[in-house]
């Protein structure tokens, strides 16, 4: 993996963590507390289906992602890592 790609992925992961903590009001968690490979839903970070809907909106707003008709949704929403990779490969510029 090229250095610039890794740097971009790191930046997306950082943005995602900050976004989740702020916009999902995870008041007792800091962005740096979330591990890159931590499971987001259920037993991991403890997010639920309402958070999933909120994340869909946040991806559209912040990364220009169209999430409808997405294949492998469960895998993509699994962790910060998987979300970051999907965003890196599919994002559009947000004006």
């Amino acid at each position, binding site marked *: 993996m090229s250095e610039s790609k890794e740097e971009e992925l790191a930046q997306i992961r950082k943005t995602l963590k900050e976004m989740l903590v702020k*916009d*999902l*009001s*995870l*008041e*007792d968690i800091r962005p740096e507390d979330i591990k890159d490979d931590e499971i987001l839903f259920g037993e991991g970070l403890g997010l639920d289906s*309402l958070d999933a*809907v*909120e994340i869909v*909106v946040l991806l*559209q*707003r912040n990364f220009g992602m169209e999430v409808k008709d997405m294949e492998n949704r469960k895998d993509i929403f699994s962790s910060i890592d998987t979300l970051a990779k999907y965003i890196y490969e599919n994002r559009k510029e947000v004006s």
Partner: protein
Amino acid sequence: MNINGIGIVFTRGRGIDSFEKALQEGWRTPSQVEIKGRKSFAYQVDAQMLSDKRLLKKMRRADKLSKMAVIAAYEALAGSGIGDFNKKSIGIITATAFGAHVTTFDFLNDILDYGEANVSPTTFSNSVHNAAASYISSLLNIQGPTLTVTQFFFPFHSALQLAQAWLNEKRCDYVLVGAVEQYGDVLGYIYDSELTPASDGMIKPFNFNPTYQVPGEGSVFFLLSNKNHDDTFCEIHNVSINADEKDTLQADLDIIDTDGLVADESIYKNCLSPAIPVAAYSPLFGSMMTGSAFNCAAGALMLKKQTVYANPVADNPKGLNIVGETGRSNIELLRCIRYNCHGEKAEIYLRGKPNGEGREVNRQNQG
């Protein structure tokens, strides 16, 4: 009906003890806010005050309005000292004039900023009419009837009248009745545009004309029932809106809801008697359409503690018989009065809790 518990969240703290402390300590300068580039004042509730580890996880999606309501309702229930509730027999009535207007404007801003398809579903759900009452029901696991009374004038009085009806028809054993309002930029702008802001941050309740307002926010909830427990504050003897003058009772003390939300409050003078001391506590919590609920809490404390609290702002240009000093007193009946801008009057009469007889009966029932 009786007030068995009171929970409160306001600018100076949370819990009835913090309210009593504010009544004893008197006025403090409210926080500064900026409205369209102009400095003004507001009695705001610090977000830190709403961080509650016991409720936090389930409340994280709630907006400030709902958080204030949940915490006040929780405190009212917990502070009542009544441990054994049938959750299906407790009702909830949330009274508000403006409701979740801050969240509603956030939602509208989201539509403008991101388009209809990309508005936050959480923001939308928090903006709906009954959100705060629903959070209370869900978080405190209360399964009785749950309503929100949204009314510009006298919402708290209407909520009390409804609670009385529920208790009398035995639909509920207890009713959590409360008021909640939130400060926001839009409200601050409207207040400052339409009414006179207090340039020094001080509401002067006995000025009457001109009046000065300082917007407030917070929530106060009362646990009401027809039961008389050890920790009962007092009885709500009567609640009326536009009652006939002949039904007016002579109280030992009048609390008036003057807070600058009516441009001319001179009408209050007509209902006061020189022989009866008068108090007004809006300078402690701010100008709110549901300020009656906070004054009602002050009255309930007075009756329970048999203490009168000095007016936090004692400017008295009309030479009224105002309460000047905090001290022990012998009050049996207290009247809270609010007028609206149309000259309509709402009154709440509070009576000291019944003597030991009721408590004995209650103890016997428990035994």
